[in-house]
């Protein structure tokens, strides 16, 4: 969450999702870690609106998985941001969460061990995001929303948050809606009131990655057995395999939102003109173009389809990278220690 105050760091991503119901969110999470490993983004905060401790545990083991390459002093100094989780009862059992959390090795030990054992090991989403935003440079944070807008609506209702968002956040990219029109999309439908509040009150630019984008860009299930196979155990691959009977390709509107938020200028997508998105009572979205509108939606450029899918698999399956310790002096001392060990 903290960052030494030197050069402007890469964009800080606040990722708010509903891990558990669709694999797309887990893949977007993997992409976020992949982008962080490439130093293209930083994880500012992860909030989960699905009130299931297992969702937090899953996000935690994914974080630990990507931290696993870091050892020694850097590991000792590593400080993982807590996971934000809404309180409440889980809506339904989630095979994509259960499978990796229940996986054991040949000795019966858990393959992945989460540090989250109770609700106390998680944070209130609003407080977590508020604190994370205070540590971002102005206009250097972006929100990626891939679940219902519940948490973001709460943010807008919290004292001082609207102003803080306006100051720090340059973009909200939400996987939501269907454009230019179509059936009600699940994220909007899950909390229509919250979606309306966020669409009406978000104090900055908002880009929607509609369901149609995800449907037109199915994440190739074959990639799980090919691109993720470098690791004998990968929590996201395990989640994917458990989510639905394999093989299957998964709609990717959450991944599209993540990709656009981190690489908005690389022409993966075309953008609609400015306008305003509104939501009907049954959760259907409609878009009205207007010169002063603050909303846009992503439009698929067929010429970019293969490039997007390649980027999806490359970033989501990226290997963990070694992180440096906070103080260069520590690194040097550690290197010397390692040298001594080798000499012995």
């Amino acid at each position, binding site marked *: 969450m903290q960052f030494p105050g030197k050069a402007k760091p890469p964009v800080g991503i606040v990722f708010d999702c509903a891990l558990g119901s669709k694999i797309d969110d887990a893949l977007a999470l993997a992409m976020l870690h992949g982008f962080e490993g490439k130093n293209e983004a930083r994880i500012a905060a992860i909030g989960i609106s699905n009130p299931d401790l297992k969702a937090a545990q899953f996000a935690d083991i994914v974080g630990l998985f990507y931290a696993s390459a870091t050892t020694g002093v850097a590991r000792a100094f590593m400080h993982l941001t807590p996971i934000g989780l809404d309180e409440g009862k889980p809506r339904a059992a989630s095979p994509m969460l259960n499978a990796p959390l229940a996986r054991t090795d040949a000795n019966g030990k858990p393959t992945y061990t989460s540090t989250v054992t109770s609700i*106390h090991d998680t944070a209130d989403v609003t407080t*977590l995001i508020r604190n994370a935003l205070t540590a971002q440079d102005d206009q250097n944070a972006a929100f990626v929303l891939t679940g219902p807008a519940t948490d973001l609506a709460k943010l807008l209702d919290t004292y001082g948050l609207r102003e803080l968002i306006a100051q720090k956040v340059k973009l909200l990219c939400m996987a939501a809606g269907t454009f230019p029109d179509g059936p009600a999309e699940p994220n909007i439908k899950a909390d229509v009131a919250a979606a309306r509040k966020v669409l009406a009150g978000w104090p900055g630019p908002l880009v929607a990655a509609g369901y149609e984008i995800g449907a037109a860009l199915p994440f190739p299930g074959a990639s799980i057995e090919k691109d993720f196979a470098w690791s004998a155990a990968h929590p996201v691959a395990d989640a994917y395999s458990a989510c639905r009977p394999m093989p299957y390709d998964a709609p990717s509107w959450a991944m599209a939102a993540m990709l656009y938020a981190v690489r908005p200028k690389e022409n993966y997508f075309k953008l609609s003109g400015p306008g305003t998105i509104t939501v009907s009572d049954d959760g259907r979205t409609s878009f009205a173009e207007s010169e002063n509108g603050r909303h846009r939606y992503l439009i698929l450029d067929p010429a970019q389809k293969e490039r997007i899918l390649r980027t999806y698999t490359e970033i989501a399956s990226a290997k963990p990278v070694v992180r440096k310790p906070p103080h260069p002096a520590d690194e040097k001392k550690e290197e010397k220690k390692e040298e001594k060990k080798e000499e012995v």
Partner: protein
Amino acid sequence: MALPFLEAMVPAMAATRAAKPPVRMAFVYVPNGIIMNGWNPDYEGKLGALPRILKPLEPFREDILLLGNLTHNAGRALLDGAGDHGRCSASYLTGVHPRKTLVDIQAGVSFDQIVAKQVGAHTRFPSLELGMEDARQAGDCDSGYSCAYTNNLAWESETQPLPPVLDPRALFERLFGKGQTLTPEARARENLYRRSILDFVSDDTRKLEADLGPTDRRKLDEYLSSIREIERQIERAEKDNAQIDPHMEKPYGVPADFAEHFKLMTDMMTVAFQSDLTRVITFLVTHEGTSRPYREIDIPDGHHPLTHHRNQPDLIEKVTQINSYHVRQFAAWIAKMKSIKEGDSTLLDNCMIVYGAGLSDGNRHLHEDLPTLVAGRGGNYINSGRRIVYRRETPMCNLFLAMMDRMGVHAERFGDSTGSLDGLDLA
């Protein structure tokens, strides 16, 4: 001279409803974080066996509340780079991220001062700011943070900290003397004619004793004895200081021995609370970033360098010993507070004494899961004897909001609070 709370002060007819002693609050701040493995029990709920650092408080576990996961986001870097020690002490009671500067300091009004402004009208001193080390108010004490940030806890305005009184003698004179601190010259002159303060008031106390019942007489006697004892300790400390190498700069009247200094200060805090001289005290034991050695317990290394232990067991052990040593002194004070009766309760029962630090892990400079314990029941309000673990990132300012409420000061928010901390009370 002020008097303790006596039963005779309560008119017989009103005894049942008006006998409630006032609620007081104090903050005891220790620097450079704590070895959290030795602080956090591995359980929640009713307190049983306490971890090593807290062991001295085991006899008083029914009187303390351990709070887990409280966080001071304002103490974090938030784009300001190094300087966690400066920030964590400046933000501890203000809840504000201080401006990184050596000159035009800026933090916020600390919550103890907000309380003091409201309840201070009832007492001679709205608040007392005490410490034991280094009251420099200028210079660079941490990576570009002014010493004003590390060496003060209480802030009466955004730009005006309240420096702590370090000298027990100055404190004594402030509490029981002329209401002002004498210069060393004036003090020396006065010493020529010096008698115990008690000698001056002996006629008055004799007259008063005649009108008191046996309980009050005993209480008054204990009270006067404790003042006499403080006088003796100060005399002793001054004598000891005279034997210290004269080339060393030692403030006049400050004991060389840490434990003795701590005891003197807390003895006077006890009397100040007991006699309702004040209801708000902040006590900066030593300041953030201090490199004070602890030769008293055979640790000649500086405290701060030790806390950057890089997970080396021998260094962690030394820091643990320092942490335990501090808690031992604190426990002795708690014992004293608990021994003093106030009506049907004890002085401790009617206090909220927060012992804590602005960093948890001093090695990594973490500002979350801050070591925080509250001793006393705040006047039969706090359900003590428990460990409560809150969710991560729960603002420390939520505790302050709850304490403000208990002190009769109602505010909607303070610092980065998100609401009053729940679960403290007996309800």
